[in-house]
Every structure is written in C-alpha cells, then in structure tokens.
C-alpha cells in the first residue's frame, strides 16, 4: 500500500495539481494562455537552474565519480530506439519513418519530467546524487541521432538532400536551444563551484519549486490541447505510451544500480529512460524526417507519457528502486 500512499502524496503536490489545472483550462476552453515569451523565459530559467546546480554538484563530486554512470546513461539513450523501433514497426504496424520518429522520442528525455522527479525525491526525503543532471544532459541527443539514421535508412528519400538534413538534425540535437542551455549552465556551474552557487542561490535554487509549479500549469494546457488527438493515434500507441515507460524505467533503475548509483540516482536514471522528449526531439525530427506524422509522436510523448510519468510513473520508479535496493 506504500505505493498508493506515495502516488496520492504526489498527486496532491502543487506541481501536479497545477498541471491538472492546466489540463482543465485546455478542456474547458478557458481563454487562459501563457504568452510565448513567458513560456520561453520559464524554460530558460528551469534549464539554467537545473544545469547550474548539476554543474556545481559535479565539481563537488569530481569527474571520477560521474563518468561511468554518465556513459551508461548515454548508452541507454542510444539503445532504447533499437528495441522500440521494431516494436512500433512490426507490433504497431507503423510506417518505417513514423516508427523511427517515435523511437527517437522515447530514447531521448524530458527535462521537465526529470525536474519533477527531483522535486518528488526532495519531498519524500529521498537523497540522490545532485550530479544526476549530467545524465539528463548526455541522454537528450544520442537517441535522436539513432532515430534519424533509422528513418533515413528506411526511406532513402532525396530532394532537399537527405545528407544535409542528417547534418541539420545533428546540429539541432547538439546545438539546439535546450541542450545548449543545459550543458552550458552545467559547465558554468562546474567552473564556479560552491562559491558561485552562494551568489546566485537565492534566484536559481530557493524559488525553483514554485517556478516549476507555475510552469506545469502551462504544460498542462499544452498537453491538454493534444488530448483530442488521442483518438487519432489508436489503441496501440496508447498502450505503448504507458507500458514502454514502465519497461524503460525499470531498465534504467537496474542499470543505475549496476553502475553504482545510490537509490535516488538510480530512480532518476529510471525516470530519464522512461521519459519521452517533446521539445528537442520534435524539432530535430520535424527538420530531418519531415515525412513523419507529428500527431503520432507528439500525442504519445506529450499527451500520454508525460502526464503518466508526472502523476503515476515517478512514484512507481522510486518504488521499483526501493525493492531493488532492499
């Protein structure tokens, strides 16, 4: 029954409740809307804050401790598309390019889900390695590249030059806004260390949870507007969007234990594996595999997997980790 209590506690946290409020706003067609610059401002804040904090943590822990689990995270991200692609292609009967596109999304990660998970761990007093942000940073791009290559191999379309667009996808996956901010702030944090943190803590750390709650209100609206597409994606993808995260999450937790992470860190690696990208991946995929149908990958990652992880998934992955570590 512990797991039910944990889920209940998570559902009653400000972050999740504001997410639900955002869903409501979308469903009742309220004219509430976050203007684009506010959305952008909030994402910049969240990414810089989480990256900076992670960088300071890396400086404290030392690279010697970080490199092995980070490498494992990177490999996990790159490999996930290799098993989700055939599942989608042959189990779900999706076209090759759609399968590749969706697989890329599930191998990549959602920063907001990760941030929500760190908040959850803090709320239940479960310690974790602060440098886990490094896993977030390394897991965003590899799956996108693998997915694009899978899609290109399958289609070999020409026009506009497919070689060009693979290069563009790589540029996007590596120099795109979100990964640039996250990795950049990580490096800044690592160079500053503790003394730097003291200066900017009151802005980047203290109000962080409140900002996240506000941002999840917006994310609720974004996800809510996709809900009506649920009928378009079919039952297979619905199941996929819930079950694949559970499998990937379990894989992540196991791998975390294997490479020596603590319970909290392994949970976070599980959360990352389980999460699906809905910003970085769509941008790169839309540019390099424009034939893929956005309704499929956006609806599954944004309207199914994201809400599932935020509400039920995170407490479940922690529970899995607890079983494994006990």
């Amino acid at each position, binding site marked *: 029954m512990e797991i039910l209590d944990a889920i209940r506690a998570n559902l009653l946290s400000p972050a999740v409740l504001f997410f639900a409020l955002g869903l409501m706003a979308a469903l009742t067609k309220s004219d509430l809307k*976050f203007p*684009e610059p506010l959305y952008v401002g909030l994402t910049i804040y969240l990414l810089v804050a989480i990256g900076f904090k992670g960088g300071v943590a890396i400086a404290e822990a030392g690279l010697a401790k970080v490199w092995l689990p980070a490498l494992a995270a990177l490999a996990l991200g790159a490999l996930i598309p290799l098993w989700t692609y055939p599942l989608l292609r042959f189990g779900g009967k999706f076209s090759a390019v759609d399968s590749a596109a969706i697989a890329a999304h599930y191998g990549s990660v959602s920063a907001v889900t990760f941030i929500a998970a760190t908040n959850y761990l803090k709320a239940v007093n479960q310690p974790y390695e602060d440098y886990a942000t490094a896993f977030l940073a390394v897991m965003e791009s590899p799956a996108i590249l693998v997915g694009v290559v899978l899609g290109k191999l399958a289609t070999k379309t020409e026009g506009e030059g497919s070689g060009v667009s693979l290069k563009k996808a790589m540029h996007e996956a590596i120099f795109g806004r979100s990964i640039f901010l996250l990795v950049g702030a990580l490096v800044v944090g690592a160079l500053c260390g503790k003394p730097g943190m003291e200066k900017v803590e009151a802005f980047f750390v203290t109000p962080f949870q409140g900002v996240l709650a506000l941002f999840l209100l917006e994310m609720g609206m*974004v996800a809510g507007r996709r809900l009506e597409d649920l009928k378009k994606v079919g039952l297979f993808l619905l199941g996929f969007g819930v079950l694949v995260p559970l499998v990937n999450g379990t894989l992540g937790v196991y791998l975390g234990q294997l490479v020596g992470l603590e319970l909290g860190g392994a949970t976070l690696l599980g959360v990352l594996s389980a999460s699906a990208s809905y910003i970085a991946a769509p941008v790169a995929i839309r540019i390099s595999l424009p034939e893929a149908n956005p309704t499929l990958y956006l609806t599954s990652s944004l309207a199914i997997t994201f809400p599932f992880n935020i509400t039920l998934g995170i407490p479940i992955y922690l529970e899995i980790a607890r079983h494994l570590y006990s």
Partner: protein
Amino acid sequence: MKTHPMKLVTIVCEAYAREAVTKLLREVGAHGYTLFAVEGDGSQGKRPGDIPEFANIQIEVVVSPTVADTLLTRLEKEFFPRYAMIAFECEVRVLRKEKF
C-alpha cells in the same frame, strides 16, 4: 517619384520550417525578408503559438516577378508536401528597384 512593379510573396508556415525557407529565399535570390510570429488556424488545426517550436511564422519578401515565380515553384514542389504552410503573391510597387 517613380515606382516599380514587384511581387510581395507571403508565406505562413510552421516555425520548424524557418531555416529551410530562409535558405530557399537566399537560393532564389531574394535580397532580404521580414519575419514575425503569428497564430493561425487551417487544415492542420489550430496553432496557438505559446511554444515557439510549435508556432507559426509569417515571412514576407519583396522580389522581382521572375524570382517570385521560381520561389513559388520550388515551394510547391519541395515544401508543400512536407510542411503545414500557405503561400501567395501580390503585386506591389516599390521605390529603388535595384534594392530587390
């Protein structure tokens, strides 16, 4: 004051296509363009424009009639099948025709 006939080509498309379209503009020989974020509704659904990556942009470019032709032809062949977009042209008159 002497004005010269030119074409104004207007393109409304998903923001994803931004780089591809501005690259195309350079290739067909446009000397500049103007761009801004817009909301929209069309056959591919509403675009409310709160996430920049999912939003629409409008691109306006003043070009000579021949360039307009090439531009529209390539848009039709290379872009319409891939991106949510519309494009249309309109007659305008400019000063300083050498600028366009």
